């Protein structure tokens, strides 16, 4: 092996060695996101109730996944709005909260949990809104993640 080749080999090995040294210290560059899903009474994407009577108790399931790269504290707010209530990924719906479900998830962990509900208000095309909020540890305040969904329901009196 001549001098140039030896030097080149040493440089390559040096680069490899430095890469090995810093590898465990480089933070993961994966995309960070949360997931929110609303499942029907059979824990599937379907069978959602559409026609209900006021006060009727029904069951849904919520699904939350954490891929934020850190342990996260979530709250799922279930709200009741009317057909004019806007559900967007920028602002939360400013309507009454029916119920709240809190959970803490480790990174890359998900959870499916039951949501027992009943709606007292009657109306057509009411929006049953589900919003995912996450605790900001720097401000110690929950903030809307922008993940929201809704079901349209008709509620009649008994």
């Amino acid at each position, binding site marked *: 092996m001549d001098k140039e080749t*030896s030097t080149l*080999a*040493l440089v390559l*090995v*040096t680069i*490899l*060695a*430095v890469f*090995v*040294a*810093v*590898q*465990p*210290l480089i933070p993961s560059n994966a995309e960070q996101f949360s997931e929110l899903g609303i499942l029907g009474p059979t824990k599937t994407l379907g069978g959602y109730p559409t026609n209900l009577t006021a006060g009727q108790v029904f069951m849904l399931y919520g699904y939350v996944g954490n891929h934020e790269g*850190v*342990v996260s*504290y979530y709250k799922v707010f279930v709200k009741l709005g009317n057909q004019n209530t806007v559900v967007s990924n920028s602002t939360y719906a400013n309507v009454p909260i029916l119920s709240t*479900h*809190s*959970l*803490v*998830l*480790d*990174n890359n*962990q998900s959870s499916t949990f039951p949501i027992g509900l009943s709606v007292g208000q009657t109306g057509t095309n009411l929006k049953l809104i589900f919003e995912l909020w996450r*605790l900001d*540890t720097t401000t*110690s305040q929950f903030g809307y993640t922008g993940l929201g969904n809704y079901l349209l329901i008709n509620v009649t009196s008994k």
Partner: protein
Amino acid sequence: LLAGLALAALLIITVTLVSVPASTAISESDVVSSDTAIQSAFVLTFRAERSGGNVTSLVAALNSALQLVEKAQAENSTNPAQASSDLHAAQQLAQNVTTESAGVSAAGSSFKEFVFMRSVVSAAAILFAAVFALVFGGRVFRWFWVRVYRGYVVRPANG
């Protein structure tokens, strides 16, 4: 005698009433207090994870505490004594998480330090091996070659 018996009975009733605490329903402030305790415990769990600690058990305890708070709120109107007990248990769990998070955080920091040192030592070893091979590689190779082939006799092919 009758007056004495009546007085004794009155005393027994009074002591009984005083010693058995009345079960009161949990208030909104009790729930807020539990939520705050859980939130504080979560922040410490978050920091422990950032330090490299394994927070799986802390996450499980926090979820148990949250479920107890939800259960307490649901049963408050029907079974206030149980609701109060559940809320107390939730606060106790949050307190346990707060206490344990310091140890988890310290263990995480130590492990992170160990991983860093292992990486540095590994890199140094690779570098040392590379420099050694560059400087002494030829000499070492020839030394081994002579050791392996020292018993061989070299003869011309046509001899």
